[in-house]
């Protein structure tokens, strides 16, 4: 145990990752500008962002591979800048594009990695079998890495990351280039780590993150633009206010019926009637309106004017949240540039205003 590790009163309860005001510039060009976040132990967290948002840079700084320009990063209670070698023993990292030596066999490579990560030969042998089984690498264990398919290479990278059972695993785009079956397998693998290890993965494949992660961190242009569970984010960005209804009946009476339910309820679009005479309607309510589904069912089904077939709140995908979050930020940045004399810059981690 190093001094840095024992300095925190109870490492078990401390957050796995603390990042404060992290800034990284490459030759004057800012890649990360003031990112702050915390990750609790055992959490699976997804880092989202468009290309060039600063995801990989943030992850590389977390691993101690790159030094930060300014700001503080603590991993498992250890300061990364002060004690990078200590941090390296506590995390498993899979870099972007998963670089692997081309001319080694899978088993050999994992053995080397295990030895480098401080496992003794006696401990390594059973752990290697376990990891190979977990990542389904049994069939390719004696194959040369350079000749493996992308899916297997990716799994070798994941096997390497979890090999030494570190408390924290960081994976940069673990599912890139995989087919749907392999993506499912990787997703299951990550889910199986839940509770045992803290996992931080970056991706721009949103369904991935949505299914696997407890919490999402959206980064754009080097800043955190939104953070929270996928469901929370959806609510924060879109409110309760979108409904989809399928019904048949006199359409001209609909606005009046809607006004009875909530004065702010508006009809956005109406689809042409299908063969059975049903039309699909999209409604929006103001962001502050409560959940109106029950009231809508009552209002529309009552009296037999309309035949109601379906009613639901439209589910926004994380994709829409992501687009909204990154767009608001860009617009915000533009408007800030226009009003250059603004005295208070918004705090980097603050939520952007929900798009109505």
């Amino acid at each position, binding site marked *: 145990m190093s001094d840095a590790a024992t300095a925190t009163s109870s490492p078990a309860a401390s957050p796995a990752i603390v990042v404060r005001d992290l800034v990284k510039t*490459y*030759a004057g060009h800012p890649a990360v500008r003031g990112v702050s976040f915390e990750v609790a132990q055992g959490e699976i967290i997804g880092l989202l962002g468009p290309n060039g948002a600063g995801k990989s840079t943030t992850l*590389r700084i977390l*691993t*101690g*591979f*790159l*030094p930060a320009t300014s700001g503080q990063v603590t991993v498992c209670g250890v300061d990364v800048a002060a004690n990078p*070698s200590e941090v*390296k*023993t506590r*995390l498993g*990292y899979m*870099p972007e*594009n998963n*670089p*692997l*030596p*081309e*001319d*080694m066999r899978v088993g050999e490579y994992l053995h*080397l*990695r295990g*030895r*480098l*990560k*401080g496992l003794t030969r006696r401990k390594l042998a059973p752990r290697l079998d376990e990891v190979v089984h977990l990542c389904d690498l049994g069939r390719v264990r004696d194959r040369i890495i350079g000749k493996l398919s992308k899916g297997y290479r990716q799994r070798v990278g994941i096997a*390497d990351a979890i090999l030494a059972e570190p408390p924290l695993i960081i994976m940069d785009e673990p599912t890139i280039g995989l087919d749907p079956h392999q993506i499912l397998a990787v997703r299951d693998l990550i889910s199986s780590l839940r509770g045992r290890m803290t996992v931080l993965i970056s991706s721009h494949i949103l369904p991935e993150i949505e299914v696997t992660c407890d919490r999402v961190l959206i980064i754009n242009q080097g800043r955190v633009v939104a953070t929270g569970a996928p469901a929370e984010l959806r609510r924060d960005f879109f409110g309760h206010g979108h409904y989809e209804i399928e019904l048949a009946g006199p359409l001209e009476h609909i606005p009046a019926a809607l006004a009875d339910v909530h004065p702010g309820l508006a009809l956005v679009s109406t689809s042409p009637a299908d063969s059975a005479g049903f039309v699909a309607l999209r409604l929006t309510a103001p962001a502050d309106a409560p959940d109106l589904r029950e009231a809508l069912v009552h209002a529309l089904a009552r009296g037999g004017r309309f035949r109601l077939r379906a009613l639901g709140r439209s589910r926004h995908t994380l994709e829409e949240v992501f687009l909204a979050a990154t767009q608001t930020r860009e617009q915000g940045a533009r408007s800030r540039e226009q009003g250059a004399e603004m005295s208070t810059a918004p705090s980097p981690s603050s939520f952007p205003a929900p798009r109505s």
Partner: protein
Amino acid sequence: MRAFRILLAHELRMLLVSPATYIAATLFLLVMGFVFAGILETFAAAPQEGSPAAVFFQLFWIPVFFMVPLLTMKSLAEERRLGTLETLLTAPVTTPQIVLAKFFAAYALYLGLWACTGGFFYILHWFSGAAQGPDLAPLIGGYLFIAVSGTLFVAIGILASALTRNQAVAGILAFVLLLALVIGTRFTATLEVLKLDHLAGLRAAVDYLQVFTHLEDFTRGVVDTRQVLYYLSGSALALILGILGVEAKLLHS
């Protein structure tokens, strides 16, 4: 230290399983074999001064210029090009450990290749049927020179490899640096400028850097600690610069 041992064992193992090593070794022995045969022919045709061993080691620069860049150019440049340097450095491993492991692995191979040429002298002795053994002194001196000077040559190769991600650039850079070190100092020593009186100190320094002079001393059995120190400190410097090169590339990547 533990990580260094593991890395060195890994590097040596990768050298031993790599076909490129055996191809390089075969070609090296082929070239040196021709050189040796050529030397023997001249000795057979007319009486010469010195021993065949001394002349053989005079030609040490042939393998140095071609083998050292080939042996070392891949080491760090390839790791960086593939990105495996990132996986290595995010394991509990430091840059000096990686660079030193690469250096010692390449140096071991360099020594191994030269050791194979010992077979030439054994074969010569065997076929000549001479009653007394071969003259061992120039042999031991020559191999000692190869071992000592090899540290600097290989370290320069590693330094070149640390500075670029392109193997070809690393190879050419190593070649140019070695050329400057071995031949360049020789040319510098013949410059008229250095004959001026007030440049006597500089001339002494350039003379001191003559690799060929070192070789002559070693094969005559003179082991000058200053020369040994020159090679060891030079290789330490090259390795430190190599380590700094790798780290600087990370800082400014």
